[in-house]
């Protein structure tokens, strides 16, 4: 009997997850195993090897190995990258420090602007200049470079970022400069902006290049250790690394530009939600991932995730943060997870998050000295989480600590502990509602047209209430909800998103010249994409290309993406493109103009399947619903009050089973809350569908 084994491991902030799929090549029958261990900073690869052992994975049998890691975002958040220097265009070394000058915390005159990742004495300049059309207006002069590199050596610099003005339009100067740096100092890590992005805005591009250089040796070291560790276990399969654009990329490409991993965790979960939607026939999905410290959401329309390049780290209402101009799935993230702390301000108002109790001390219920009430504690007090089945019974919930913590909140609010717990759940839900609105209503989408796919440890606990509030008709809790990021990687393609700024000047776009210019742009980028795939032995015919043209009304700044079929552009295609631009624009912004439309660039998606999983249905044993029932208990649904609820064991639910709320499905790693009036059913793949009463 031969079978194909696929493995995905996901290193998260708290846990390292494993999903293992073995597919019998003859029968197509699949077996799945999952496992979770603690994440092991700073040597994250140890946790990966441990979870593989815990899941009893024979690494030498693995055909497809996907891996996601938080190593990049961790190195950035903890400022544990290497000493980095910058070389930029003469007159512009302060761009990194000037940034954009904005101040989100706008009444606060004691605001502190974020510090640049490269101090001024390590930011150096070189003569040479391009204009916005990519024409050389002053030649590159590298005569001063040896002295600059001597200074960098004396300062123990380990990585050099290169970002020159208008390199997005013409990278020749950057290429020459990078080659010369490598020639003069082969040991130093070097990255130039054009290798990462071909979009304009010098601060964003410079900062992105600097951050990539800053984490490059760390990420490379980690990936090397992982590769060695897996090789030591006999790995012969191809190792793919999860990226922020919902695809995987090769090990070599990731080592060169590691910054593209920055948001890989949410990306794989959202991709999983999109794939799941396709499998179960729900192409329009609101994806919600609730973890320990945050909730993240994204909107998927027609099976497509939205990939953008205006991602910022550490940006909030209180800080301008740092831009990272790489393709990242459209994600709205809020500081609201299971461990988020409830607190009362000076005026008696209840808030939840963004402070989190984290893994240590964790929620009060963990009994590790956490004295503050969290969302998880409120869920336990209300009987939503089973206090006798906390973490599948692995942890004994410290109910004294829960009561004490909630009591303090209740006292300040002047209500009972149960009322306080209800308030915490409602506030937490409201925070998540607002996040879901940001990705839907704020972009012109009606949530009622979408299915809510909820995952992460806390997704299933809150999704039912959120759906009722938003008018979403159906919620789907994936079978692998607690390890869904790893599950999503199994489904990923080798994918690269190319963003290129290119103004196509025209008075009206429906002309032959514009068609030729656009065709030329698409072909130029397609050539680059195919060459990159070819270097990894993937032939052109296996590479799927999807161009998105960035259009706007003349004089506007923000553009709208319009999808095209790959192929030569004719004037008829252009007319259709413009018509669709007007329609998309009107849906998003409520009006259209008769102003000229201009093209400002291209977003080309290139992808190839590299062994992703085809999911098979879960076999039925014919067991009755009764065999999955654990009993009944009082559950407080916050808004709807307390009800006697049916309790089910997730591991015994089978396709075809259905039941009505009030009910709770208990899984060792999550809890599914079915509200009164909602109905639940299990689909052929083991996912739970929850529908609101009409």
């Amino acid at each position, binding site marked *: 009997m031969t079978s194909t084994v696929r493995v995905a491991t996901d290193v998260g902030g708290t846990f390292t997850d494993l999903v293992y799929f073995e597919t019998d090549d003859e029968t197509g029958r699949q077996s799945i195993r999952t496992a979770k261990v603690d994440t092991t900073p700073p040597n994250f690869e140890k946790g990966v090897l441990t979870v593989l052992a815990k899941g009893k994975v024979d690494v030498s049998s693995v055909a497809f190995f996907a891996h996601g890691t938080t190593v990049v975002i961790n190195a950035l958040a903890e400022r544990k990258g290497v000493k980095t220097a910058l070389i930029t265009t003469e007159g512009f070394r302060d761009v990194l420090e000037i940034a*954009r*000058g904005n101040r989100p915390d706008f009444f606060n005159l004691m605001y502190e602007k974020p510090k640049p990742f490269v101090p001024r004495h390590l930011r150096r300049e070189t003569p040479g200049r391009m204009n916005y059309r990519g024409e050389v207006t002053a030649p590159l002069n590298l005569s001063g470079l040896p002295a600059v590199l001597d200074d960098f050596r004396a300062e123990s610099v380990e990585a050099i970022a290169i970002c020159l003005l208008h390199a997005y339009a013409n990278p020749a100067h950057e290429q020459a400069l990078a080659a010369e740096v490598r020639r003069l100092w082969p040991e130093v890590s070097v990255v130039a902006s054009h290798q990462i992005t071909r979009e304009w805005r010098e601060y964003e591009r410079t900062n992105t290049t600097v951050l990539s250089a800053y984490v490059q040796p760390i990420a490379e070291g980690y990936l090397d250790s992982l590769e060695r560790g897996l090789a030591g276990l006999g790995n012969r399969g191809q190792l793919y690394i999860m990226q922020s654009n919902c695809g995987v990329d090769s090990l070599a490409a990731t080592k060169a530009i590691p910054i593209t991993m920055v948001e890989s965790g949410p990306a794989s979960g959202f991709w999983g939600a999109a794939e799941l939607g396709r499998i179960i026939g729900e192409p329009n999905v609101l994806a919600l991932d609730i973890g320990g410290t945050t909730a993240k959401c994204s909107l998927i329309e027609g099976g497509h995730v939205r990939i953008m390049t205006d991602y910022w780290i550490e940006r909030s209402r209180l800080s301008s943060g740092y831009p990272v101009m790489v393709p990242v799935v459209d994600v709205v993230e809020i500081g609201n997870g299971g461990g988020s702390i409830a607190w009362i301000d000076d005026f008696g108002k209840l808030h939840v998050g963004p402070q989190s109790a984290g893994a240590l001390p964790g929620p009060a219920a963990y009994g590790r000295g956490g004295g503050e009430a969290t969302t998880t504690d409120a869920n336990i007090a209300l009987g939503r989480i089973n206090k006798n089945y906390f973490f599948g019974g692995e942890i004994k919930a410290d109910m004294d600590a829960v009561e004490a913590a909630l009591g303090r909140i209740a006292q300040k609010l002047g209500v009972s502990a149960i009322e306080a717990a209800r308030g915490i759940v409602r506030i937490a839900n409201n925070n998540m509602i607002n996040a879901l609105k940001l990705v839907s209503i704020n972009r012109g989408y009606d949530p009622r047209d979408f299915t809510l796919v909820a995952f992460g440890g806390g997704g299933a606990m809150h999704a039912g209430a959120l759906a009722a509030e938003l008018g979403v008709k159906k919620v789907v809790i994936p079978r692998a909800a607690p390890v869904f990021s790893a599950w999503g990687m199994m489904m990923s393609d080798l994918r690269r998103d190319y963003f290129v700024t290119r103004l196509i000047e025209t008075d009206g776009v429906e002309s032959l010249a514009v068609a030729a210019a656009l065709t030329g742009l698409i072909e130029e980028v397609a050539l680059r994409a195919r060459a990159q795939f070819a270097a990894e032995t993937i032939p052109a015919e296996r590479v799927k290309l999807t161009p998105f043209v960035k259009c706007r009304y003349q004089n506007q700044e923000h553009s709208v993406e319009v999808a095209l079929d790959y192929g030569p552009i004719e004037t008829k295609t252009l007319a259709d493109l413009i018509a669709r631009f007007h329609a998309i624009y009107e849906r998003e912004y409520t009006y259209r103009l008769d102003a000229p439309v201009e093209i400002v660039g291209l977003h080309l998606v290139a992808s190839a399947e590299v062994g992703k999983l085809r999911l098979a249905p879960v076999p039925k044993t014919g067991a009755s619903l009764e065999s999955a029932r654990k009993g009944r208990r009082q559950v407080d649904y916050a808004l709807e009050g307390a009800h006697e609820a049916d309790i089910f064991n997730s591991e015994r639910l089978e396709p075809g089973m259905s039941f009505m709320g009030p009910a709770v499905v208990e899984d060792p790693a999550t809890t599914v809350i079915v509200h009164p009036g909602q109905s639940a059913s299990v689909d052929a793949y083991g996912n739970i569908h929850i529908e609101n009463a009409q």
Partner: protein
Amino acid sequence: MQPITDPVTFDIIQNSLEAIADEMFAAMRKTAMSAIIYEVLDLGTGITDADGEIAASGAGIPAFIGVLDKAVKAILRKHNQGGIAPGDVFAVNDPYAGGVTHLNDIVLAMPVFVDSALVAWTATIAHFNDVGGMVPGSMSTDAYEIFQEGIRIPAIKIIEAGTPNQTVIDVMTVNSRLPAFLKGDLWSGIAAVRIGERRLLELVQKYGRATFLSAIRHFMDYGEQVSLKALEGLPKGRFELAEEQDDGAIYKVAIEITDKTFVVDLTENPDQVRGPTNASRDGVIICAQMAFKAFSAARGAANGGSFRPLQVITRPGSIFDPVEPAAIGFYFEVEVRVFDLMLRCLAPHMPNLLPAGGFASICGTVIGGPHPDTGRHYTIVEPQLGGWGAMRGRDGNSAIFSGFHGETFNCPAEVAEARYGLAVDRMMLNPEQGGEGRWRGGKGIEVDYRVRADGNFMTVGYTRTRIPPWGLAGGADGTTNYVEVVRSTGKRERYSLASGVIVNKGDVIRIVTGNGGGYGDPRERDPEAVLGDIHSGYLTPGRAEQVYGVRAESRGSGLR
């Protein structure tokens, strides 16, 4: 429906109001035609209650948020005889009719009706590139009557029960030198107030009118409580300051703080001027509101209730309360001065709440003309970044917009070169020396725009061009703001308040903004920090020895 009055429901409604104001902001930002709106974000959005008290505000410019309530109140006064109907959108830009700032800023406001009762307003304000008047960009330093500054829109309906009043829109459009921009920006604002209206209706439908209204009332009371609580922590008494301005005028302020009130007295100030540097009384009140927020509760809610303890006293006919037809085109430089005056008055008494003086100017810069590559007309309307003052425990922020701005973004050089056809020769921190202290001031900027076509014009409104930013607690004063035009002949011209200056191919417009003032005696600065500043090229060795008493021989060269 029985009204719900539990605090959690109230909180949820209040959060939703903030989310709606944010959504309006995002909608306008994405659809605006002018860079001043979508890039610089010279706009504000908000929701008021039926009486025009601010209930929630979106992101943007703090100086704009306090405008909307005053504009809505003016609309209410004018149209109180049943002239307000569902689907209406009102427009106002005239400060003598509720517009508050200057004629470039058009406020759009839409009433929200539930069961034929007015329950709220949604409103936006944004800077329009050109509303007519005697110069391109509408702001002229030569104007001495408001009639010279553009078309006045006195709180009228541009949309009546859902139907656009094309006559009014045509009149507005034909008066602009950039009609396509005006039209695009107008529709962008209309879209924003309409989205806000739609969302508010959904919210009221969900919770019921009574609950919605009591939630707003509750929120206002909460705002007041936050302010009163903050007043408890402030020093009490009467504080006074007189300060000389660039033009030699003396501005005076007296601030009296009690347990329950915060009174700003601006009575003793010069008469209104024959020129565009006057600020409306409403505008001056906004300055007081912002100052009050800065030292009371910078992060708490800002709504009608927050400002109940605040009173502002002005004298009609003065520069801070001019009477019609005084010109007000450069009001912003007057407002930013009076704002800074209040901060300076209180800073010595609140060392943990306020930094030393910063560059404190909008440094409003307008440049326009033909694009050398496309021939199309372009206009830049931008404020500038500058250095902020040092504060106890920390050096000042470098290169950040003034306290009047919030989520305002500068224009990237790469975008400016393509869009405007100017060459940006450099964009760097201001190398001038000054602002030293135990903690030093932040650095301003120096930007060179090289003009590539003949017949461009420049208008600038800068203050703190002679009197530098103030040091605090023994810190040194910072450096001044100015614009220098370096002609292709090499001749240099210095400007601070000017309009219609012609610049031609090869001329360089050099924008220099101030370094902020220092905090504390420079001799107490950590010598390592001094050496670090030398190493980074922020400080010259000579200046270090002179001001800090630190000799720099041990560290690197600080070469570029």
